[in-house]
């Protein structure tokens, strides 16, 4: 099924994308064109291939054994559509530009500051003072600065789950990505903390193209501009905001699928 929204220039074009692990088809020929502004939320039952789909946008599936794929993915990076498999785009550069935050916060077992500073140094080679400026900037961007400014040398594990997740986001943002992939970023967090992160995402959508997997209908309706529904490795529906504003329609669609 070809899912298209055509009123604006697309930022993501996927053509007949197949992903296999150990010969088993996990994504079965995805055709998709995403355009417009705002957050794209991916919904679907567990095992439907949401995570695999996200990981195929920054080629992270390649880190797993038994991976093979076919098809094409084009993303809008620095204003132009680029084939993510093209040799002109080095893998490390693609992954810097397409940042990813995982389901459970995965901070480095080192200080809060170093969590941001170390990858920044390795990827960009920036000097110490520039890194420190960037550190403050991104911690403010994720509203963590006031909470941690006096304890930057503390181990990141001492932060709460929600703080850790925001630190992980800051770590990605420090590298100045253009696309953000979020894989159920609030799955391991409580209700109140989830709300904080959702509000943060709504702010961040101004500056980054966000594609987020969600496990909650409520969350999807709150933050999404478009909803992508996956089932058994296929894109089942692509819904615009008008469609899911009415909770009944969305509920019905989801019931069909789960």
């Amino acid at each position, binding site marked *: 099924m070809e899912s298209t929204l055509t009123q604006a220039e697309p930022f993501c074009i996927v053509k007949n994308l197949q992903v296999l692990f150990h010969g088993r088809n996990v994504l079965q020929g995805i055709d998709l064109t995403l355009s417009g502004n705002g957050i794209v939320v991916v919904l679907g039952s567990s095992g439907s291939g949401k995570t695999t789909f996200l990981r195929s946008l920054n080629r992270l599936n390649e880190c797993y054994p038994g991976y093979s794929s076919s098809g094409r993915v084009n993303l809008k990076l620095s204003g132009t559509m680029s084939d993510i498999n093209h040799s002109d785009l080095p893998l490390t550069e693609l*992954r810097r*530009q397409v940042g990813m935050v995982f389901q459970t916060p995965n901070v480095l*077992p*080192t200080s809060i500051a*170093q969590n941001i500073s170390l*990858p920044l140094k390795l*990827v960009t080679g920036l000097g*110490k003072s520039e890194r420190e400026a960037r550190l403050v900037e991104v911690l403010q961007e994720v509203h963590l600065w006031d909470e941690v400014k006096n304890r930057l040398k503390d181990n990141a594990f001492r932060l709460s789950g929600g703080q850790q997740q925001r630190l992980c986001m800051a770590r990605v943002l420090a*590298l100045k990505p253009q696309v953000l992939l979020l894989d159920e970023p609030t799955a391991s967090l409580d209700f109140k903390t989830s709300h904080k992160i959702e509000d943060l995402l709504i702010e961040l959508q101004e500056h980054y193209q966000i594609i987020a997997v969600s496990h909650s209908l409520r969350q999807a309706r709150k933050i999404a501009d478009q909803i992508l529904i996956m089932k058994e490795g296929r894109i089942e529906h692509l819904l615009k905001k008008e469609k899911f504003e009415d909770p009944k329609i969305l509920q019905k669609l989801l019931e069909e699928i789960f």
Partner: protein
Amino acid sequence: MSRLLDICVYSWSWLATIKIFLVIGCLLWFLLSRGLPTLSKELFFGDAPVLQAIFGQVRVWDALWPACVGTLLLVLLAGLIAVPLGIASGIYLACYASSPFKRILSMSVELLAGTPSIVMGLFGFALILFLRDTFLPEANTSLLLASLCLALLILPYLIFTTQVALESLADEYQLIGPSLGLTQVQTVFHILLPAAGRSILGGVVLAIGRAAEDTAVIMLTGVIANAGLPHGLFGKFEALPFRIYYLAAEYQSPAELNSAYGTALVLLALTGLLYSGAFALHKTLEWQWNQH
């Protein structure tokens, strides 16, 4: 019923833990009570004047000092050879090797781990014989050869612990590096190794202990009873475990046997010192990782 099982399991694990302390306590008490009274200047230096003995200006007879230096050098050399090699092989197995090749390699490492130390010694000995018959007629057993064979002996511990430490890091942790756009080398050295550092340190400690106590390897590769301080890499040397071995085997008087206990105590202390060295090195690296 399940409550009863709970209690049983609990008391069993509790007893098992206590047992460890008991065993260590008994061993230490036994060693201390026999060995402590023998610790003296004479045990270390015989009748030689201390300062001159330490710097090798005076030959020390029938005392520990040359064996202490010998063991220290032996372990340091073996570690210097084996630790970088072992950690590098572990990294290769965990992060780079493709699966059919990996299986063969892992099997070889297991085989190496299962090789008795006396075989390792024999191998070193045979190597010298071979060298003598071919292009190095003056080759002889020596400190270097013993260190090499010891390095071979401890290599599998280091490989295994490094590999397991890296592989047991959570999937999501392993993905941090790649997902941020780090190269594989950066990921290994800046993200994975520091997180696995503690476990690798455990392997290094195990390896140090093994190298410090082994007698079979060095007996065939260069240790002798009265070598004095080691004369360079190609000289013979003394070592603490070997001294304990022959004191215990050929003692002439109870006092001599007791001095074997004293020697054992010294070996224990020396090993502890080496552990602290490894620990300090790890702390330094960790500290460096935390700087930005």
